[in-house]
């Protein structure tokens, strides 16, 4: 990869990684690790439709994710159906459909990401959307954590928990759509979950937890992209390996 392209992908990696780590800290607190993972699979048919219709795959992925979060939200709020089972069925189904309709040449990229092809316009968009996501997460952070600790307590002090949950899911959709460019639909779960899991090992309070999680996301994504170009590997798996290395290091320094 030439130097300019490398810097461009590292910048995108840094922003998307930061946003993923920050958001991931909330997903881990809400015990949504597996939902996040399954959700990222929904992006695949969206990506495929984007490719087939010649629109930017990011928008296809975001559209599919948006539909999926509306569905989750409705299932959680309007029905008594077990969310977990539905998520499991529906999301693996969309992965299967995605595998069938994604054009063969793009399939690997869609599954495992490829940031080396980033053009400047995409990079600018990714940075802007990441910044929006970071600001939005910051805005709802406290209210969402309180709602996670006790929905009743949060409601009793006037927090509109359903609305906050919905905004949260919207941000999840946005970040997953951004992140699959880097690590692909199969590995996106790792980019949001692993930095937070590592941060949780090292934090005694929320500021440290959120900050470290964001930082680990940034290091994993930017560092992983750099390492991948150095070793001439595909960036997605290297990003995930980098974050996993941080996680194992965090176990050594774990605070009780």
């Amino acid at each position: 990869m030439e130097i300019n392209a490398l810097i461009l992908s590292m910048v995108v990696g840094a922003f998307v990684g930061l946003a993923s780590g920050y958001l991931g800290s909330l997903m881990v607190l809400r015990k949504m690790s597996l939902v996040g993972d399954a959700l990222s699979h929904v992006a695949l048919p969206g990506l495929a439709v984007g490719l087939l219709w010649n629109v930017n795959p990011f928008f296809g992925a975001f559209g599919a994710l948006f539909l999926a979060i509306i569905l989750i939200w409705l299932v959680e709020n309007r029905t008594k159906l077990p969310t977990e089972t539905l998520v499991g069925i529906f999301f693996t189904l969309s992965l299967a459909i995605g595998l069938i309709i994604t054009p063969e040449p793009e399939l690997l990229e869609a599954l495992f990401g490829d940031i080396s092809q980033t053009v400047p316009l995409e990079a600018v968009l990714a940075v802007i959307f990441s910044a929006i996501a970071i600001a939005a997460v910051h805005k709802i952070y406290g209210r969402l954590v309180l709602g996670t600790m006790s929905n009743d307590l949060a409601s009793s002090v006037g927090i509109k928990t359903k609305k906050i949950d919905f905004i949260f899911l919207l941000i999840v959709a946005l970040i997953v759509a951004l992140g699959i460019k880097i690590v692909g639909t199969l590995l996106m779960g790792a980019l949001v979950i692993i930095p937070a899991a590592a941060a949780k090992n090292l934090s005694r309070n929320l500021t440290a937890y959120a900050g470290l999680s964001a930082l680990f996301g940034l290091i994993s994504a930017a560092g992983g992209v750099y390492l991948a170009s150095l070793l001439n590997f595909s960036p997605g798996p290297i990003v995930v390996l980098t974050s996993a290395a941080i996680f194992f290091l965090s176990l050594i320094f774990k605070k009780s």
Partner: protein
Amino acid sequence: MTDMTEKILETKELAVSFDSFNVFHDISFDIHRGEVMAVVGPNGSGKTVLFRALLGLIPFQGAVSWAKGIKIGYVPQKLFVDSQFPVSVGDFFKFKTKSEEAVVEALNSVGFTGDFGHLKHQLLGKKMGALSGGQFQRVMIAWSILNKPDILLFDEPTSGIDVGGEETIYNLLHKLQKSSHLAIILISHDLNIVYKYADKVLCLNKEAVCYGPPHEVLNTANLSQLYGGETKFYEHKHGN
């Protein structure tokens, strides 16, 4: 001067059901300023559901009327935190206020002494999930009285509270009630507590089995109807 006779809450024929399951029905009571009402009943009799209805968190039939401008503090039975949950006591207070002064005042009034620096060192840096049962309850009460509520809804945990200690949670609630004319509705599992601290008691089991001053309504017949025969554990011994 606060009008101690002012009625701040009235419920009429309150009923809650989930789908076709009737949790309770026909619950009517009122609370005046500074009054303490205990809610007793067996497990699953709908005590916590009653609180959720009073807070407007679930749909109900009948009427719940709060006086105008009444501020409600709520202490839930538990929070969904484990010892790894990365939220410190200080974080928890920051969810509600930015004022260090208010936090110190609230913590002092529940028996954590010292100024902000001391409390920061001793308590605010601890994880919520690492507090003992008694500390946790006092933190929860401090949190709920931050905005100086008129009434406190206190859902007593079934376990995990240190027995003994210099000051029990009920002495503390009693002091708060006296010093700030706080009305309290408390869900309790201990009838001795009810005798000692409550002005009146609501016995809940599908309906109001009894309602009135503890010494008048907590008789063998009512208790037997409420708990189904296991009353000898709960009989009050005078002189406690």
